[in-house]
């Protein structure tokens, strides 16, 4: 795909929602872009990093989301247009700074700042489906949310205008079905002027005298609300005297439009769609809701708009209007907004029959199709070093026999807890949390705790947020083994570079921070091993497990997908000796190790392998207890 700055104004191209957000930022003249990868937000920074120009546009992967928002906000105080992108979980990490940034604003230099947060309703690629819209209320900050890809472009420009005019950062919310939907987008003009950055040292931006600043902030929010009352992206379609008004935002808008069309309700029901979701443009909303006696709110996950609409109805003497949605049970409290959900809710309210699948066909599917559909659980790729690392950990813990307890965190190592993982990690929450929780457990000896404690983290997570927790463990003298799975990439989200990889988001060289040196400088004992040397790795794990103090074991082996991108060929050719292979009697390589390339051939009862899946990593040679697998170096 072409870099997004290559498209000519006036032409239309298929863009991913995240690329549309990036294009909008480019058209508005964004200068300073930061972020940390996290699905579904990860494509925004790379799309802009492809278009960087010295003195005009900088784009970076920051070490974590807190550093990202701080960098972006600072650039705005120096008069630039900045944008920071992250997923909902990352915004939580950045909140300490953001709540204070609301109080200070962006200063007098005329800069602007968007905090782009992408939520993942249904948790397609997340540990939770937390609704970050509440953080707009929490941080007393405006939030906008587009309904379509084209609107995503235009709304970025609008949000920058609001930010600049009010010296306030603006939350811009994406969600999976926007960020990862592709639509044809019509391109606008790209600006040519280069800005000049400087700081105004005559003013101090700090939150203190906080009561005064809080009052000023509330007044600023009212001024922004007044702007939102006029926002051209908030729309109403429908009759003058509707029997019901659907209030929709985000994915709710297109879902509602489709459901109204399917049920033939377009002449009877109004559709009020909001792009400015906080603060609510109350007067404009009430202008439309006063003409009806029923409201249905269509939104994903929490009743955020529903709460705001109910409050506004009561405040405006319209408390008798019936509000349907999450509270009434018409819309589920979890998961995505789909056309089916909108349809079901509307059909129930209007006592209509929702179209359903043909009964005979439904029976056919239940009897003849569904029984064949087995689940396809997630697993590590063929050649992934993590499979070998967790295999070794399993062996080491069993041999140690003291019921070692493993804590983990977010990334490809998380696949361990999925049904087809090795089920070693028993405590897992957030980025880097394995280290923090292990530091807690590692101090429980006085309470009779005797189990060895093992934390697992990835290399990107290590830099992201494990380091301060490791310092905590050293400082408070925890006993723990920290395993760092160093695969030289932020693998789960798409191989983005990080401080340990030696390059930047713009693909320029960067100082390469050495994980081992960082750990040693903190005061940890460091051992380095190759997870593909499975037996040696198991041995060293056993030795380090339960040793006093903070032990660090770095398991260093590049992500197979990263290696393949560089090498394009397989290191080894694999052959399986059908005489030596015990097949169904053993099955260690397929049933236990679960390399996706190895399987038991029902015809022979022996192990075979799928050439198109095998990465030629050769680790199976070490796994086979009967030396039936051998490897030959590829030319």
């Amino acid at each position, binding site marked *: 795909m072409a870099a997004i700055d290559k498209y000519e104004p006036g032409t239309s191209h298929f863009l991913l929602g995240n690329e549309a957000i990036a294009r909008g930022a480019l058209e508005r003249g964004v200068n300073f872009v930061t972020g940390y990868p996290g699905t579904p937000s990860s494509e925004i920074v790379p799309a802009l990093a492809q278009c960087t120009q010295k003195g005009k546009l900088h784009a970076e992967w920051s070490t974590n989301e807190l550093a990202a928002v701080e960098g972006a906000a600072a650039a705005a105080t120096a008069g630039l247009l900045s944008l920071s992108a992250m997923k909902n979980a990352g915004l939580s990490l950045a909140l300490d700074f953001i709540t204070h940034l609301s109080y200070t604003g962006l200063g007098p230099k005329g800069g602007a700042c968007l905090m782009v947060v992408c939520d993942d309703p249904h948790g397609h690629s997340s540990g939770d489906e937390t609704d970050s819209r509440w953080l707009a209320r929490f941080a007393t900050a405006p939030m906008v949310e587009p309904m379509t890809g084209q609107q995503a472009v235009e709304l970025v420009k609008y949000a920058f205008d609001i930010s600049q005019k009010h010296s306030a950062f603006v939350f811009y919310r994406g969600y999976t079905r926007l960020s*990862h*939907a592709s639509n044809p987008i019509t391109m606008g003009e790209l600006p040519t002027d280069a800005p000049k950055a400087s700081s105004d040292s005559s003013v101090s931006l700090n939150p203190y005298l906080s009561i005064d600043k809080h009052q000023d902030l509330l007044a600023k929010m009212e001024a922004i609300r007044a702007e939102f009352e006029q926002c051209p992206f908030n729309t109403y379609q429908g009759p003058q005297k509707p029997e019901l008004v659907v209030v929709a935002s985000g994915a709710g808008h297109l879902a509602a439009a489709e459901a109204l069309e399917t049920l033939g309700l377009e002449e009877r029901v109004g559709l009020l769609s909001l792009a400015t979701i906080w603060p609510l443009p109350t007067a404009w909303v009430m202008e439309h809701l006063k003409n009806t006696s029923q409201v249905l709110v269509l939104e994903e996950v929490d009743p955020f708009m529903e709460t705001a609409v109910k409050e506004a109805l009561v405040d405006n003497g319209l408390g008798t209007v019936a509000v349907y949605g999450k509270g009434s049970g018409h819309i589920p409290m979890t998961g995505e907004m789909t056309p089916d959900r909108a349809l079901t809710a509307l059909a129930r309210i209007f006592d209509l029959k929702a179209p359903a699948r*043909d009964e005979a066909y439904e029976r056919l599917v239940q009897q003849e199709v569904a029984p064949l559909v087995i689940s396809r659980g997630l697993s590590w790729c063929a050649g992934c070093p993590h499979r070998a690392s967790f295999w070794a950990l399993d062996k080491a813990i069993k041999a140690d026999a003291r019921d070692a307890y493993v804590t983990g965190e977010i990334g490809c190592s998380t696949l361990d807890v999925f049904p087809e993982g090795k089920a070693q990690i028993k405590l897992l929450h957030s980025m880097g949390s394995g280290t923090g929780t292990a530091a807690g457990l590692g101090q429980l000896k006085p309470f009779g705790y005797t189990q060895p404690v093992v934390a697992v983290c990835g290399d990107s997570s290590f830099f992201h947020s494990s380091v301060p927790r490791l310092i905590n463990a050293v400082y408070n003298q925890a006993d723990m083994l920290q395993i760092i799975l160093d695969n030289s990439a932020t693998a789960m989200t798409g191989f983005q570079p990080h401080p340990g990889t030696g390059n930047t988001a713009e693909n320029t060289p960067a100082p390469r921070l050495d994980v081992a040196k960082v750990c040693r400088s903190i005061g940890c004992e460091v051992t380095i091993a190759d997870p593909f040397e499975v037996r040696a790795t198991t041995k060293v794990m056993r030795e380090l497990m339960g040793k006093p103090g903070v032990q660090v074991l770095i398991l260093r082996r590049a992500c197979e997908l990263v290696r393949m991108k560089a090498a394009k060929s397989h290191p080894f050719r694999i052959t399986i000796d059908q005489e030596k292979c015990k097949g169904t009697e053993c099955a260690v390589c397929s049933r236990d190790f679960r390399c996706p390339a190895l399987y038991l051939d029902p015809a022979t009862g022996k192990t075979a392998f799928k050439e198109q899946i095998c990465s030629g990593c050769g680790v199976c040679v070490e796994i086979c207890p009967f030396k039936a697998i051998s490897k030959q170096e590829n030319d």
Partner: protein
Amino acid sequence: MPLSPDPYNLIISGIGGQGNILLSRLVGRLMFRAGYQVSIGETFGAAQRGGGVFSGVRISSKRLYGPIVPQGAGNMIISLEPLEALRMISQYGNPGVKALVNSEGIHPVAVLSQKASYPSDEAMSAAIHKATDQAWLFNATKIALELDAPIAVNIVMLGGLVATGALPLDADEVADEVKASVPPHLAELNLTAYRRGMEAVAGA
């Protein structure tokens, strides 16, 4: 040209890494260029790691539809893997649905770990035929491997789609788009994959 039905809901499914997203974007671009409104909804991220992935491509001459295909509302299911075709049929199938399926199976890890068994080719083929109005099954992986390009399965399937005649796609325009979408040194290979897919379905 009017579409029947409108919106037309195309589902493209497979396993992470099979090139399913590229295929959906190719079809989306072609239909957009032919004058239709197109929305593509994708799931990726964690789902790449050996999991099933699918895109919904919603095409309309009326207006822009959201990226989520309603349950039971699929018009054509293109699957790069037969088990995933069945998964999509159970969710989006209806008596009028058509299916274009690569018959080469990829075992889920649960099969390797002996927690589940993979259905036989015959059982999958029978179920696909029974639960669709029309179905085309052929081994696209075999064709791609013959070309020494396992990654070209998606382009073989694109050829198959054109041969089904399910969408108003012009064979030459599609060939031009394939050529424009791949690096120049891979153009000939992909065009061959495309033609082989067309022949396989036309001859089926």
